[in-house]
C-alpha cells in the first residue's frame, strides 16, 4: 500500500495526461506508450483538484466516493501512473506546445504498374527539403532491385525512417528483404500484403527493422484510412502535435500512382504532377496547408472521444465529404456508448 496522509497531494506524473471522453476517460502515459481507462468522475477529481490536499478533496465528496478516491489513487500509484507528494509546486504540468523545424516531416509515395514518374528523383527532392519519414506503397508486383536502389539513396540522408509496403511476390525472397533491413537500419518495416500466410520476420541482431507478411488484400489507395486501436500511438510527439494540428496531414506530402502531388494519395486535389512540378513548387501553394491545422477538437464526434490525441485522423474518407469537419468514415467507435460497432 503506498504511503500517504491527508495533508499530501496526489499527482499524475507530468507525462501521464488524462483525456476526457463523452462516456469515459483515459490517462495517456506518454513515456511508457500505454493508456488506461478511468471513470469520468475520477477525471474530474484529478483535473479540478490539482492544488488541493487529499483531505480537501475528500471533504467535497460523500462516504462511498471518499473510499473510492483512496482506492483509485492507491491503484494509480501502484500501477506507476502517479505519486503522493507534499510539494506539488515542484511538479508542474508538461508543456504541450509542439513545433518542428521541418517543412515536411513525412511522405507517402504510391506506385503501381502504370506509374511513369521517376521515384528516385522524387526521393532526392524529399531529401533536399529534409523530410524525415517516408512510406512507399507498391500495389503491383515489384522487384528487389528497386528496393535496393531506394535503400541506397536514403542511407546517410535526412530520411531516418523508411517503411515499405509491397504486394506478395514469389520472386522476392524473404531473405533478400531481411538483408535489406539488416544493412539499412533506417528501413523500419517492410509489410508484404496479399501474402498466403501471416508471419513476422525480424532482424534479431539489431532488433530494429522487421518484415511483416499479412493476408490483407490491397489494390490501391482506397484501402487507406483504417481506424482501429492497432494504430493508436501514445507518445509525446503525437500527443502534442494533435493538440493544434491535424495529426495525419500536418507536415505530410504525398505522391499518388499518377505522380500527382497531394496532401494524401486518397484525396482528390492535386498541386501539380512530379513530371512537371517540383515538391517545393507544390509546397509554395497556400491551398496545400488547408487541412494542416484541423485538430481532433474540431472534428465532429472525435471531439468527444477519449482517444482523440492518440488516434490519427483521416480527412480523405469522411462520413460527409462536403463537411470538412466530418467524422472519419472508417471509424466504427462510438464515444457516447464507448463501443466499437
Amino acid at each position, binding site marked *: 500500500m503506498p504511503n500517504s496522509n491527508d495533508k499530501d497531494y496526489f499527482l499524475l*506524473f507530468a507525462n501521464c495526461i488524462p483525456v476526457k471522453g463523452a462516456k469515459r476517460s483515459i490517462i495517456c502515459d506518454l513515456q511508457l506508450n500505454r493508456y488506461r481507462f478511468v471513470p469520468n468522475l475520477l477525471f474530474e477529481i484529478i483535473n479540478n483538484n490539482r492544488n488541493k490536499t487529499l483531505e480537501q478533496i475528500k471533504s467535497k465528496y460523500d462516504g462511498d466516493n471518499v473510499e473510492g478516491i483512496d482506492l483509485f489513487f492507491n491503484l494509480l500509484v501502484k500501477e506507476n501512473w502517479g505519486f503522493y507528494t507534499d510539494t506539488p509546486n515542484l511538479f508542474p504540468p508538461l508543456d504541450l506546445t509542439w513545433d518542428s523545424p521541418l517543412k515536411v516531416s513525412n511522405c507517402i509515395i504510391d506506385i503501381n504498374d502504370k506509374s511513369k514518374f521517376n521515384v528516385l528523383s522524387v526521393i532526392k527532392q524529399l531529401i533536399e527539403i529534409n523530410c524525415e519519414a517516408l512510406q512507399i506503397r507498391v500495389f503491383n508486383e515489384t522487384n528487389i532491385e528497386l528496393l535496393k536502389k531506394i535503400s541506397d539513396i536514403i542511407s546517410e540522408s535526412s530520411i531516418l*525512417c523508411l517503411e515499405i509496403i509491397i504486394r506478395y511476390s514469389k520472386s522476392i525472397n524473404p531473405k533478400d528483404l531481411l538483408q535489406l533491413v539488416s544493412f539499412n537500419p533506417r528501413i*523500419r518495416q517492410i509489410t508484404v500484403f496479399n501474402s498466403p500466410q501471416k508471419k513476422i520476420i525480424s532482424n534479431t541482431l539489431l532488433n530494429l527493422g522487421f518484415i511483416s507478411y499479412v493476408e490483407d488484400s490491397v489494390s490501391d489507395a482506397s484501402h487507406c484510412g483504417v481506424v482501429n486501436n492497432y494504430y493508436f500511438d501514445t507518445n509525446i510527439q503525437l500527443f502534442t502535435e494533435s493538440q493544434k494540428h491535424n495529426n495525419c496531414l500536418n507536415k505530410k506530402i504525398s505522391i499518388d500512382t499518377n505522380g500527382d502531388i497531394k496532401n494524401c494519395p486518397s484525396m482528390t486535389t492535386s498541386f501539380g504532377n512530379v513530371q512537371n512540378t517540383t515538391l517545393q513548387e507544390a509546397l509554395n501553394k497556400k491551398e496545400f496547408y488547408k487541412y494542416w491545422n484541423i485538430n481532433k477538437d474540431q472534428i465532429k464526434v472525435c471531439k468527444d472521444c477519449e482517444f482523440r490525441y492518440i488516434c490519427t485522423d483521416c480527412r480523405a474518407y469522411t462520413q460527409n465529404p462536403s463537411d470538412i469537419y466530418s467524422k472519419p468514415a472508417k471509424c466504427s467507435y462510438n464515444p457516447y456508448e464507448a463501443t466499437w460497432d
Partner: protein
Amino acid sequence: MKKENILKKVIGKYNLKKLPLYYNSMEEMPRQSSIHTAYSLKHEGAFFIPTKYHKPISRIIKHQK
C-alpha cells in the same frame, strides 16, 4: 522560480544523482522525477533510438483489433 532551480530542488529532495542525457529507451528514463523527465524530453534533448516513426504514416493494412 527558475526552471534550473526547480530542477536542483527536485534532485536534492529525492536524492537523485545527476541523470544522463542519453538513454537506450523511454523505459529507461527516470519515472519518479517527472519534472526531470519532462525537461529532459522537452528541453534537454534527451536522446534514445526510436524503433519506428512516432505515428502511422498511412493506415492501409487493416490489422486485427
